[in-house]
Structure formats: structure tokens, C-alpha cells
């Protein structure tokens, strides 16, 4: 089992979500977050350009069984790119996942994912 964490641009959430549904990854958690990589995206404030030190991003967390890892990662990479890839498109982290428990039934492991 792996935990996949993807940090993407907020405007790509919808496309990434559709791409994940297409490869039958239906259980995801998405949250708003702020962060900073290489990208800069200035706002305007009374004629002044303001470069925020932290930018809005979306963080997606998906727990998957090993066979789904490649498909999930490919789906995210395919859908989260702007114009074939620009700075700020985001990152994906793949982490080992020790266990997963479904609260309702108490089942453990792969079947709970």
C-alpha cells in the first residue's frame, strides 16, 4: 500500500479528479493549502504588484494498493500539467503506508483502502 500526496495548482483540481475517476481511483481527499516552490504569481494591490510569499495550492491525498500506484501517478501527471509543463505545476510524493483501517467495519489492510 502506498500513500500518494500530490500538490497541484487549484485550477487543475477538476481535471485531475476526472483523470483519476477515469482510471478508477475514486477515493480521494483534497484540501486547500498554501505553499511555495519555484513559481511566482503576483497579485495587484492598488496598482502595485505584490508577490505573495505563499501561493494557494491544492493537496490531494490518495491511499492505493500497489497495483494502482503507476496508474494514479500517471493520471495526476497527465492532468495537472499546464501547456505541456510549466514551473508551478506541482509535485507528487509516494510514501509507504503501513496500515489502513476502515472505521465503520474495523477491517485492516488492502481491502480497507
Amino acid at each position: 500500500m502506498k500513500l500518494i500526496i500530490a500538490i497541484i495548482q487549484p485550477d487543475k483540481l477538476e481535471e485531475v479528479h476526472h483523470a483519476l475517476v477515469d482510471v478508477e481511483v475514486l477515493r480521494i481527499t483534497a484540501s486547500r493549502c498554501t505553499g511555495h516552490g519555484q513559481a511566482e504569481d503576483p497579485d495587484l494591490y492598488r496598482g502595485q504588484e505584490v508577490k505573495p510569499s505563499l501561493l494557494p495550492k491544492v493537496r490531494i491525498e490518495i491511499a492505493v494498493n500497489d497495483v494502482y500506484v503507476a496508474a494514479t501517478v500517471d493520471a495526476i501527471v497527465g492532468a495537472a500539467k499546464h501547456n505541456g509543463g510549466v514551473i508551478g505545476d506541482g509535485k507528487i510524493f509516494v510514501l509507504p503506508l503501513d496500515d489502513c483501517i476502515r472505521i465503520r467495519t474495523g477491517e485492516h489492510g488492502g481491502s480497507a483502502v
Partner: protein
Amino acid sequence: MAKQKYMTVCLGLVGLLVCAVSVFGQATPAPGVIPTPEVVAGVVSDVTPLPQIDTGTTAWMLVSTTLVLLMVPGLAMFYGGLVRTKNVLGTMMHSFAAMAIIGVIWTVCGYAMCFGDSVGGWIGWDWDFVLLKGLDSGPGAYFGDDIVIPHLVFAMFQGKFAIITPALIAGAFAERVRFRGYCVFIALWSLLIYNPLCHWIWGGGFLTGEAIDFAGGTVIHISAGMAGLVCALYLGARRGYPKTAMHPNNLVMTMMGAGLLWVGWFGFNAGSSVSSGMQTAQALTVTQIAAATGALTWIIIEGFHLKKATSLGLMSGILAGLVAITPAAGDVPPYGAMVLGVAGSLFCYAAVVLKGKLGYDDTLDVFGIHGVAGIVGAIGLTFVLRSIPEHGFNMQLWYQFKGVGVSMIYSGVVTLILVVLVDKTVGLRLNDKAEMAGMDHTLHGEHGFGLLNLN
């Protein structure tokens, strides 16, 4: 480069306008007396030598003018709350931009086009009204035989109606238009659709004295509703509609906006009596009654249909009731307001459900609420009039149908021409990428809500 060219063209146009106004304005001899604006009922008065300003009416008209302007930020909040988070500023900017753009156009030539002397019944014009020159001092405007208010008050009061009408349309194509295209569109819409319509029905044009339109059902709500429908159909649905769920970002703001609209509507309707007396009281009373009845009707329908009363439903009912009573405000008794409130909500509810089935994307239901309730009010008022005019019920019903038909056809056809023109030249529809990223940041370089942003 393109931007520079655009700026040059804009500056050039403004320059030309100013030149034209100053040259022609001076060439025309100033008329001796300011022509009398016609009241809603179409009564023209004689001019008496020494007019005394009616302070009571003037005070109420000043309040009304202020109240109607308050409806525009109210509309901004109403619409702004209904769109997605990334489009809240872009949507509110549509209403506020109307205040800026129409505010200027109205001063330069809008009032002259609406309330100047009629040119063959088609459009008004009076050089003395250009830049409100002749209104700045002078004898005041007459309504009936004895009511005199400063002419500027009447011009400003009417100007607020001109502002809110194009702002209403913006709801139909919310979340998917470019700001520049929108600005050009509403400027042209105001000049080519609102001003002629306003003149035809209120300013002495060919429909004046026929269709009863007390405070703007035909001129404002039907024309804006029809324009919204045409724009929504031509520009197409938002990306992902109706498959993707699109949630309102802030219904709290929408409710506050609807509250401001209800309050502002007292100025809108009761102010349209241009008096401070019995008819003002009648208009104010039926406004209150229709709004309440409309709101109650809507949540009762929802109770049967969905088993839950929704906040947006209650707000929609308020608007349906208010729009339906607008053309009728001074001319129907309280029970008539209840009838129109119920009918407004019934038909609007049906229209909104039908929209879902037909699948076109009139995003914030400009046609479904303003268009439909406007038509219901304009036709329905004939059945509940306080007193039937001399020409009889059937004739009046025909006049009402004629007013509605003229407004729908004229607004529909000219809007279609305008929207195609603006979309092909300046560009109105937002591209996919900008639409996905949201109007706030793409078009305005800002974010509406910083609450979730740590900086």
C-alpha cells in the same frame, strides 16, 4: 501592441465625444423652458411661471434615488455569493462596473436619449440635456399640475434604473466573460436597447400611455431577462456545466444582497410615483406584500417538491415577487399584489426547473426570474387593476401584450447583434484556461477571499 492600439482607440473615441458635445452643444440655442418629463401615467403638465419646489416630494425622491443605487451593490452581493470562489470578484465587478460606465453614459447622453423631446416616437433627444447642462439650474421638472422637483433629482433617479438594468444581465453569463468585452457590451446595450425602450414607454415614445409599466417591468426586467437568455444561448454553457457541480461560494452574502435588494426596491417602486402621497404609499405597500407573498409561495412549493425550504429558494421568491409587482406597483390594490406575488413565484419556479431540463446555462437565472416574473407582472396586472382605464379591459390587455412583445423582440434581436459583434471584435467569451483558473486572478490580478491563504 494590441493593448496600446486599444487604448489609443478608446482615448480617440472619448476625445471625439467631448468635441462633438462641446461643438454641437454651443451651436444649439438654449430652449426657453426645460421640457417637462412625462410621468409614468403619461401626464404632461402646463408650465407655470414661478415654480415652487415641492420639498416633500424632493426629499422622498432623493431618498429613493439613494435606495435604488443601493440595489446595485445589493445585486453585486446577491450574484457574487452565488458563483464559485474563484469568480467572486469578477462577478461583483460586473455590477460595480455598470455604476461606473452607465453613470458616465447617462450624464453624457443617456438622459437626453430617454427623456429628451421625442424624435418621431423612436428616440428622445435634447441638446440641453447633454451633460445635464440645462438641468443644472432652471425651473425644475413638473409632474402632474402641482408637483415640482429639481430636474436633476429626476435625472439621477432615472439614471439608477439605467445602471441596474445592464448589471442584471451579467448574471446570465456569469463566470465566463472577459471584463473588457463586458464593459463594451453594456455600454452599447445601454445606448441601443435601454435608452430607446425607456423612451418608448416612459419618455414620450410610441408606447407611452399604452402599456402600464409603473416602475420598469417591461423596460428593465423583461428586456434584461431576454438579453440574458440570448447571451447565455449564444455564449454557451460554462466549462463542465451541467456535469460538474458548481457550488455557491457564499450564500450568506447572497442573503444579505437579497435583503438590500428588497429594501432598495421601495425606492425603485415607491419612488416611481414621483410624488410623496397616496400613490407612493400604495406602491410601497404592494411592494412589501408582493415580496413577502412571493417568498412564502416559493418555500411552500419547495416544501412540497423537495421537502425542504432552501435559503436560495426564499431569496428567489423575494425577487420573483418584487419583479412581478414592479410594473404594477402604483396601479393594483393589496390583494392584487398577493395574486402577482403568488403567480410570480409559481411561474419562476417552473421556469427554473424547466431550465434544468432544457440544459442551457442561464447561470444565475436572469431570464428565469427577471424575465419570467416581469412578463407575469406585466400581463397579470391587467386582471387586478384598481380601476380599468377608459379604453376597457381588452384594449389594456392588448397594450400589455404589445409592451411585453416589443420589449422581448427588440431586446432579443438587438442583443443578439451586439453579443455577436462584441464577441467577434473585442472578445466576450473567456478562454478555457482562464475560465478554469477563475476570473478574479486572471482578469483582475486579485483573490476575493484571502481567508485560506496564509499570507
